[in-house]
């Protein structure tokens, strides 16, 4: 296993992949943790609200580690002839598409957006609504995955553009990791005081 990993990644590549794993999860946690702050201050106090955000950051860090692990393992399935950067960029692309769908699925609820009524009626009338719903979801999701993947494989410009974009995101990811450290310190203080 270790041999497979070392043959497909180098230290820089793994670090970049980790930073990319940090980005979407932390971005989402920060948005919602800050959204909760006023609600928490109303119900508890400022220190507990800060505590809630701090725990959120720490949990997000561990979730990012988990995502990173899964992505790194997934990368072992990519062609050996690919360079490390290409592999990392490809995995990042998959992660971001999945993340966007994760965000969309929560936002649909949050903004109270449902399928158009005639479509729901049609799905219900088929007699197998759950299967139809999955098929419908698949029909929407598949193009959003296949098109970027196709673009990545076929168009030479996609890789440098993606790498450039990732390079910009690393700064933000580093900032999020800094927040994690602060969060961890707050968590420790709360648990020893």
């Amino acid at each position, binding site marked *: 296993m270790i041999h497979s990993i070392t043959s497909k990644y180098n230290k820089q590549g793994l670090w970049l992949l980790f930073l990319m794993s940090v980005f979407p999860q932390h971005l989402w946690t920060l948005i919602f943790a800050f959204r909760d702050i006023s609600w928490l201050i109303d119900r508890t106090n400022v220190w507990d609200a800060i505590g809630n955000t701090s725990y959120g950051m720490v949990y997000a860090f561990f979730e990012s580690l988990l*995502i990173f692990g899964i992505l790194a393992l997934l990368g072992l399935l990519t062609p050996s002839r690919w360079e490390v950067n290409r592999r990392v960029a490809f995995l990042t692309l998959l992660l971001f598409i999945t993340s966007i769908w994760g965000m969309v699925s929560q936002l649909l609820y949050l903004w109270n957006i449902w399928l158009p009524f005639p479509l729901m009626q049609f799905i219900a009338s088929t007699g197998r609504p759950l299967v139809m719903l999955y098929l419908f979801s698949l029909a929407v999701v598949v193009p959003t995955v296949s098109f970027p993947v196709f673009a990545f494989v076929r168009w030479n410009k996609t890789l440098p553009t993606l790498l450039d974009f990732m390079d910009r995101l690393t700064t933000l990811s580093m900032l999020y990791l800094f927040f994690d450290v602060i969060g961890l310190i707050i968590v420790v203080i709360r648990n020893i005081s």
Partner: protein
Amino acid sequence: MKNQFNRRDFLKLASLLPLGMAPRLLRSVNNPPQQGKPQNVLVIVFDAWSAYNVSLYGYPRNTTPNIDRLASRAIRYHNHFAGGSFTTPGTASLLTGVLPWTHRAFDLNGKVAKPFVSRNFFSALQNHYGIAYTHNSWANTLLRQFSQDIDELIPRELLMIPSTNTFITRLFTRDDDTSAVSWERNTHLSDDGSAYSLFLSGLIENLQEKKIEDLKPLFPRGLPTSKSDIGFTLERAREYMLGRLTSIPQPFAGYFHFLPPHNPYNTSQKFINYFNEDGFLPIHKPRDIFATSQKSTLQNDRRLYDEFVLYCDDEFGKLYNSLEKSGLLENTWLVLTSDHGEMFERDIIGHISDVLYQPVVRVPLLIFEPGRTTGMDVHDYTSAIDVLPTLAHVSGEPIPEWSEGIILPPFARQSQIPERSLYALRAVKNGKYAPFTIGSFIQVRGGYKLHYYFGYSQTPGDGLVRLYDLNSDPEEMNDLAALKPETTAELLHELKAKLKLVNEPYL
């Protein structure tokens, strides 16, 4: 540096250790315990349980058929007041026998001031085996503070359905509430469908849903929960409690604080829609200046709450029967009460508003005396701070000198309660160790109840004062502040003097 402390010094110091026990022994001599077999004390608290919604106290819906039946053998206190309007001050007053402005636990999830860490229900009943449990994490914060006086503090998560939350609360035992709330927000899709986690939320939620699959049909509205766990049942808590009470040393002093009927009002399947379309229409009360809720949900929420009270009543009935069967009741003082109430009127739902109307501060109190076969009604105005001295008195322990309460009738030597003022307060926005500059206070004296709110944006200037005559107007519909200026001024003067006094140490 040479160590000056030698073996001889150590032996000298060790010989003084028994003197440390002297204060306890001397206190016992001053107030000797009752003759005969020492008796157990068991306090059962249902959280956010308002006396307003209890049929025993005249509520039109039959919410407590079992308690009503059992109360024919109990002392029923009809005008009993909590110390505050939410868990922290309410529970702390009940357990310390002092008002929130004395114990200072009036902030959300707050702790009592240092002196009260060792002045509590368990230290007062020092010759009893102390056992305690609560579903409520804020009450647990207080119990943990008192843990040095509790022989057996049952871990909160023990009677919760095991989940990832349990792991988190065990990992962060000293900060279990906030860590669990954050974990819950991380992994559980909230009502609006959002969670901090993009991927784990769906996964963990599915796993947890599977864990409670068997219980789901029994609780169609969802399991009773504190929102930072996946749920619990009163049935499990009752069985565990009985198991412990029948095996621990006697006399014991037990404090069991169950979360229902606190929101969310997830009642058992047995009581779903029990009061649906029963035609009950509560008295309409005008919107309050502190109102935050929408009128449209008031009656529905009230019905859900009433149906949840039925679940508590059912479980208490079963608990009582089991205690009786086990023979424990022959030697146990059983107290049934609450830490604060809940309200569904004036466009206010719950107990997080700054108001202190009767539904949020008037709570049930029933005392089941060993061997008593007849009921008794007490209509005097009583307070949560009276419970501790009363229990110490009846169980043969010295009455704690720090307690601000009195011995409740009919156990006091004098037949009538002396004329006194009762207080309750809410001051979550005020500094914990600062003079009161913002808060809600009530004073009850001679049948009158004075509300005094100050420091809020809704109450500019000198604040807002309201006066109600509880004897003729228990629903608090007619503000008499303008009609009875002398009574209002007299009560307000007394309350302000009291506030001045309690503020002094923090000026």
